[in-house]
């Protein structure tokens, strides 16, 4: 028995070494960095330990801006994309002809490169010397005036950002939800039909609870994904997100490390830990809410 105990650890060793070197050690290092004050990257020395890094980051207007942007993005895109995906999946599972075609069309964004999609959005929204973009053409058609979506007011940029994010996360959610809907046994619906159940009641009392684990999964991963948004912003607004006012928390962390104003691992670490705390809190809240509403 004793021998088999060591054997088990031996089998786990490769994974433990890799995880230790590439995951656990960096994580601990980040925590250490975040408390080291006046850390010098070149001489690898610091002037002391304390909460200065956190205080600096929290008072940095760019950070506050990034925090606000991220929160807006999360609060708008997660419910909208999940709800929209549910609607589309319901529609998809209730039509028979052309279902495969629609499924393919809805899945296309998932296999398309982010930067290519960014280019398409440029055509739609960007104002250039030659055109105001497709959306502006539409706005003109309905009698509105030109809005500069990419370099204009903050709300317009935020709108584009949200549409972009929703659009990019939608395919995966539709894929998950259509298969979840398909896995609900036909007998449940037949039983409900014989009892004369209204469609709305069938949806809320049968369909929704039955696919609730999948919805919950999408919401959790959606929250985490939206909190970690960065590359989509770069695709739309370029690398200088701070001056565009469109930075996100991950973007801020990146800028602190490598950007033009970079070279501050301590500030980056502190920001990363704040992000971690936020995601952790939200996920905990999600788990608590789900306990009563998700049926496995």
């Amino acid at each position: 028995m004793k021998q088999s105990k060591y054997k088990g650890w031996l089998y786990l060793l490769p994974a433990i070494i890799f995880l230790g070197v590439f995951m656990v050690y960096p994580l601990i290092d980040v925590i250490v960095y975040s408390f080291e004050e006046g850390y010098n990257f070149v001489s690898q020395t610091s002037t002391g330990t304390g909460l200065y890094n956190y205080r600096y980051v929290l008072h940095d207007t760019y950070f506050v801006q990034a925090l606000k942007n991220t929160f807006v993005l999360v609060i708008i895109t997660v419910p909208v994309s999940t709800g929209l995906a549910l609607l589309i999946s319901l529609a998809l599972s209730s039509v028979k002809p052309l279902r495969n075609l629609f499924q393919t069309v809805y899945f296309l964004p998932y296999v398309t490169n982010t930067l290519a999609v960014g280019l398409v959005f440029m055509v739609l929204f960007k104002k250039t010397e030659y055109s105001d973009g497709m959306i502006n053409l539409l706005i003109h058609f309905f009698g509105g005036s030109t809005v500069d979506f990419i370099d204009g007011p903050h709300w317009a940029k935020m709108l584009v950002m949200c549409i972009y994010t929703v659009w990019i996360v939608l395919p995966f959610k539709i894929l998950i939800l259509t298969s979840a809907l398909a896995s609900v046994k036909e007998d449940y619906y037949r039983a409900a039909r014989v009892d004369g159940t209204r469609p709305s009641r069938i949806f809320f009392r049968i369909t929704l609870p039955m696919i609730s684990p999948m919805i919950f999964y999408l919401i959790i991963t959606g929250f985490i994904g939206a909190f970690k948004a960065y590359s989509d912003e770069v695709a739309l607004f370029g690398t200088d997100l701070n001056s565009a006012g469109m930075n996100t928390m991950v973007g801020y962390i990146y800028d602190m490390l490598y950007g033009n104003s970079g070279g501050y691992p301590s500030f980056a670490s502190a920001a990363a830990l704040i992000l971690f705390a936020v995601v952790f809190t939200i996920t905990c809240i999600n788990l608590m809410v789900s306990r009563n509403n998700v049926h496995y």
Partner: protein
Amino acid sequence: MKIKLDHVTKRFPNRNKKIREDVIAVNDFTFDIPDGKLIGLLGPSGCGKSTTLNLISGLEMPTAGRIYFGDTDVTDLPAENRGVGLGFQHYALYPHLTVLDNITFPLGNLRGAEKLTKEQMRAKAMEVAKLVQISELMERRPSELSGGQQQRVAIARALVKMPSVLLLDEPLSNLDARLRLQTREELARIQKETGITTIFVTHDQEEAMSISDLIVVMKDGVIHQIGKPQEVYDKPCNLFVAKFLGTPPINVFEGTLKKGTLYIGDEAVLDVKLTENDASDDKKAKAKQADSDRTVWVGIRPEGFVPDAEGPLSCSLSKIEVMGRDTSVVSTHPAFVGTTIRSIIPSEDAAGIEGETVRFRLKPAKVCLFDHETEETIPFEAR
């Protein structure tokens, strides 16, 4: 509620698109189901039993024919307006709801004047729960129940609206043997207590025989025979019905009718008088033919054999299986269709059976004759 099916036919388009011909699941059904009875729809798998049930429930619409509940034509009525309760083979209990919520679910659909308060729903649910004996399980979820309990919940849910007709699709097939025996008695009791016309589907002839007031034997979408279980067992209308009912199954021999005597092989086993008194020419011709030699199928129920040293039918003995109350004698005969003849005799009569051959006398009431070509029953009297 009396139910009447009038030339009901259901076709499905063939899955294999190369074959244009439709699949006929139910072919020209006509039968009356009397009020307040327990009816068993019996047949091998794929014979259209479940489709028949779905047609009555309204989940499927017939291709042709009419369906009546009482005097009302319900053919075009959707399922929810027919007032039927339906129990599914796999129960289809909502896994996220408690037993109580499952049972009250149909009540929650009532609207307008019929709308019930929570307390009323609860009271009704408790009432049916008591009937099917699950009162103490109301707060549990389906996954915490045994198969038999789940089945009771499913029946309770089907019953809670007090439907005019209760339809059960293979209600016992998911239970183990002992539970099946117990639950089928429960089913009969529940049906008696409520007096609701109940139709259940089964492929298990024993199940259908034991509890039904009336059984409907089907095969390939066609009704073969409708009748009281004992009646269908004793007087099957054709070879299929005879073979399908009874365990062990009926023993079928190839025999010959010669001048009022039935021969199996060279042995004259029974003197018979055909009672085909139908006046039609066709039948008369047949009757005439019957006077000359006529090859027939002879079906003998396992309990139709009486061991008798002087008996006319001699079989070579294979083995004797003692089953306590009865003894099963396994033997062979050259004219037998199949491999072994299985006869059931009371254990006290089995004492003398030994050696190479066993001789039997036949009980005329347990013998059936079938036409060699049409496999229809040939009615006869023993002389």
